[in-house]
């Protein structure tokens, strides 16, 4: 996974609340067996008309929107289906950071696995960043310092899970990290097998 320490970029503002993962990645595109190439379908209904041509109000496809690495979003972003195709599509668009008032739990956890930082800030801060995004200002996100700033303004601090921060900043593979404590998993299984033997079975080969 690519490391995430800090970055500066213009941002795209998506004000609508309750943007669900069906909007982020419509079910038509879940029939892939790969993780890559989903960017062209991400946020399809906000970017294309029904006949497949680009909408002239697409926030992603014109001017600064084409290179923005940050999305400032409405409340309860990423609700609904657990599809990781949603963050895969976002990452494929080149977006590495989402800032909003709240993110759905499964979506936020899927983002961590894909090196996308989700920053939760109070409503007034998000509203201010929404205005900055629309004004084309550059936003600086520093994960190591856990701050967000705009054009050298005062830093706003944000909370972030320390374990996730460690993974993101070092670009670590979570499975590899977990397997470092494999002996503890084995010990747990031995104990559980005594207490709840019905949870283990011999499946014929």
């Amino acid at each position, binding site marked *: 996974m690519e490391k995430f320490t800090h970055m500066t970029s213009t941002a795209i503002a998506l004000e609508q*609340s309750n943007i669900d993962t069906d909007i982020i990645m419509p079910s038509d595109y879940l029939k892939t067996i790969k993780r890559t190439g989903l960017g062209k379908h991400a946020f399809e209904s906000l970017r294309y008309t029904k006949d497949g041509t680009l909408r002239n109000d697409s926030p992603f496809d014109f001017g600064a929107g084409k290179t923005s690495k940050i999305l400032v979003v409405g409340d309860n972003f990423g609700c609904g289906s657990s599809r990781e195709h949603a963050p895969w599509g976002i990452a494929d668009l080149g977006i590495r950071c989402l800032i909003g008032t709240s993110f*759905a739990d499964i979506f936020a956890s899927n983002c961590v696995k894909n090196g996308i930082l989700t920053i939760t800030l109070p409503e007034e801060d998000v509203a201010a960043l929404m205005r900055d995004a629309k004004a084309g200002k550059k936003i600086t996100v520093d994960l190591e310092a856990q701050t967000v700033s705009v054009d050298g303004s005062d830093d706003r601090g944000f909370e972030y899970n320390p374990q996730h921060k460690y993974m993101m900043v070092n670009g670590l593979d979570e499975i590899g990290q977990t397997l470092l404590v494999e002996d503890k*998993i084995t010990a747990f299984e031995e104990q559980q097998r005594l207490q*709840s033997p019905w949870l283990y079975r011999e499946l014929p080969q």
Partner: protein
Amino acid sequence: MAKTLYDKLWDMHLVEDRGDDVGLIYIDRHLVHEVTSPQGFEGLKMAGRKLRRRDAIMAVPDHNIPTKDTDKPNPDPMSAMQLAELEKNAKEHDLEYFPMGDSRQGIVHVIGPEQGFTLPGVTIVCGDSHSATHGAFGAWGFGIGSSEVEHVMATQTLVLKKAKNMRVTVEGEMPVGCSAKDIVLAIIGKIGMGGGTGHVIEFDGPAIKALSMEGRMTVCNMAIEGGARAGLIAPDETTFEYVKGRYLAPKGAEWDMAVAQWRTLHSDEDAVFDKEVVLDASEIVPQITWGTSPEDVVPITGQVPSPDSFKDPNKRESAVKALDYMALHAGQDMLGLKIDRVFVGSCTNSRIEDLREAASVIKGRKVADTVIEAIIVPGSGLVKEQAEAEGLDKIFIEAGFDWREPGCSMCLGMNPDIAGPGERVASTSNRNFVGRQGPGSRTHLVSPAMAAAAGIAGAFVDVRNF
């Protein structure tokens, strides 16, 4: 210290405490389907890692499969490829796999409980957000993404942040004509779509305890529509009776040992919840959604709300968009709203009791001429067999309903069962998102009885006086 049921499940599965409320949690059960697993299997292979416990997996196709003409090749080559990939992975790893045509095949969240794979006290995951369903057994079930699917395959664990505790108590007795679906829609209407975010919801109270296992699964299934990754109901005699004798249920002396353990799975009397909500079931009227989010819900006797009634400007704007998409106007009665299609099915409402509920309304009546298609999709092959043994299929077919093969069907627009642009669907599924049942489709979430009645009348009616 007094613990909630969720606290107990967390402690029972904690492999390593990492501080800051983060833990390495052991996963007992993993349901695998075609859409969210290919990347997990591929990742495992590419990293040269082994599957840790194949006995902890049950694999089944459900999302992409057609529910009619199932003897013909899948009409969508992309779906066919994904389904072939699941079968290949199941063979390669020697998994317990129920292919199409096997009576044990069905929707992941229907077959897990049916096979006794879902048991009280287990952690059970699936790459599907409706894994909350399994909480009905006092199991900690939750949806995961494909990277987590791979993590579970490789390590049988997940790194999780402990959620907060929320309790929704449903007092009183549910009125005749209402069902578990109405209870859960009323709850979501009350707490909102993000009301349970960051929490695990325990459902409690006399109206919940009075529900059958099927009803409890309907309630927990939609916990995620209230933002909660998991819903829970403490196991009791109803649970044990449902589980006993099923394929993977403990047997003999192990059964007694298991029940003794399961009886401890409840929140302690003085346990403290971070958030508490109380509802009175006796006030519940059959529910129906009007908008494009499950929180957009009113009683069937109600009207479409005015966007101006929302204080939050974002919600107001969302309501304007929703009314435009749904072709409804503020103040419009829900009663009498004409429909084009009926869908009875999905992991929310495709179990035997749901089909009985629909049949009791349909018996001896006919689907309205104006309805394009009315389909009833059992949740599994075993549900289908049971329904046919009870003669329910005849009731449906005689009334003009289409009786289908098991699968996710019209819940999510990933298989041939979709509604056309602008078509209005009376649906027993769980999400009324924009385009969820097909591009431009208009979904109204209701109970099986309400969907069945709408099919007969050709419009939404109050099933209590139908």
